[in-house]
């Protein structure tokens, strides 16, 4: 069961600010998601290797070559979506 305290913690980890109202709404929703996953816990997985990846592939590499497979962006392109920038840097609020 997720309590309000857990939700506050999860929100903090994701740097989200939740109102009292949001909390009321999300707590039962998250609990129903967890309940659903709880059903999976009932499957007997004794002796089954955990699946980390669904693809039956290993060892995919790229060579150490500049601009391969894709080219770098220009500084202008890189910053084109930034809400705030300064002297070629991205600008963000200071983190505590």
């Amino acid at each position: 069961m997720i309590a309000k305290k857990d939700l506050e913690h999860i929100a903090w980890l994701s740097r989200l600010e939740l109102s009292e109202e949001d909390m009321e709404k999300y707590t039962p929703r998250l609990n129903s998601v967890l309940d659903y996953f709880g059903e999976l816990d009932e499957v007997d997985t004794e002796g089954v290797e955990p699946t980390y990846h669904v693809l039956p592939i290993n060892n995919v590499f790229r060579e150490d070559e500049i601009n391969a497979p894709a080219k770098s962006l220009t500084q202008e392109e890189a910053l084109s979506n930034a809400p705030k920038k300064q002297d070629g840097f991205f600008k963000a609020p200071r983190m505590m």
Partner: protein
Amino acid sequence: MYENPDGVMIGLEVHVQLNKLKTKVFCGCTTDYHNDPPNSHVCPVCLGLPGALPVINKKAVEAAIKVGLALNCKVEEHTQFYRKNYYYPDLPKGFQITQYDFPISSGGYIVIEGEDGEHRVGITRAHMEEDPGRLVHEGTIDKSKYTLIDYNRSGMALLEVVSDPDMRSPKEARRYLDKLRNILEYLDVFDGNLEGALRVDANISIMGGQRAEIKNISSHKGAERALLYEIVRQKNVLRRGGVVVLETRHFDEAREITLSMRSKEEAHDYRYFPEPDLVPLKISGWAPAIKETLPELPDARRMRFVEQYGIKDDQAKSLTGELVWANYFEDFLKAYKDEYKEKLDPKLAVAWIEVLKGELNYRDLTVDAFKKEDMLSILELLVSKKITEDGAVDIIRTLLDKGGSPDEIVAEKGLLKVEGDIVSTAVEEAIKENPQAVADYKAGKEKALNSLVGAVMKKTKGRADARAAREVLLGKLG
């Protein structure tokens, strides 16, 4: 046997940038960004743009295996990547791609010179990860309102080398870092002179208490100072009857103190999960072939230097402690033989390389500041007894401070050794002109001899060998 009176236990996590690669670990952006404007070597992958997919650099994997083998680690059968989730502006995706329970190599060791002789420090594991971006704060970190971010560094290949808590003093920690750096340089995977090439987090506890993790150490000297400070701090806490708590502390390099970070920051809750965009690696089969390519490492080279050249162990240690000087020494011997068709005594070579090193260090210069040909000429002049040792030092200093060539300096300063009869004439004159000193010496004042030697040196304008002058004087006074 080292007693370790405070029960100090230190473990280090060293982040090594594999900066000799051409490109970053998961994209084709160049690693050569150090002199370029911010955000000029970035792409959708290292900017964490939606939909961008990482593909791992094969050379980075090879380099990681190389380091693992050099640190006596086992290369793991199965290795894979995880997402380590946290929000910080230096991490554009909101997670760092790193390794967790399947690191590429583990279970090795490094031998260092410990408090009581050779000491083995265990390597828990060496795992691969990506470097975050670089943050720039306007003004000081606690006063600025904004953070500026440069993602040129984002996605550089890092290897995190985690040691066991086997170091028992800050000095051992420094030696461990020196040794690790030394090995990395020999492996040619790392240029330690580049900014941000090596960063250290240290874990330290005393008297079996809780450990503090110290972040933000950027040099081996910084590590030693941060640890010394931390031992004093923890001892003070205990003396006041307090308890050392498990916490993360930040090293303030300017003030040389460690500061507690907010406790909320320490709620490590990274929610690791397997990185779905990178498939696992099964590369332990590469290890034997890569092992074949490993170069001679510092310890082996040091032993060979002692055996092959007959130099002292501490000289061999000092030479092999820096790859550039180990190579210089061997190249120098070879170059001398090529140039003068005669073998140079390695003991003489190492003694003069140490002089050169000292003069360069004093001026904060590197080996490139002194032409190897000049050093060869100077050694030849010494071997053929054309100049004195003082003269050789004079030439080295003059070359560094004013430039020129050894021959010019010899001619200008009249440094060629003078003939024996000139010395003996000078000695005779000195005895005649300084009767008081002679009388003093004969009366048993040993020091009076020095002023006579000084007089001889003055008459020969310093070209006489002081030791020879002294002998001639003793002979005549005797």
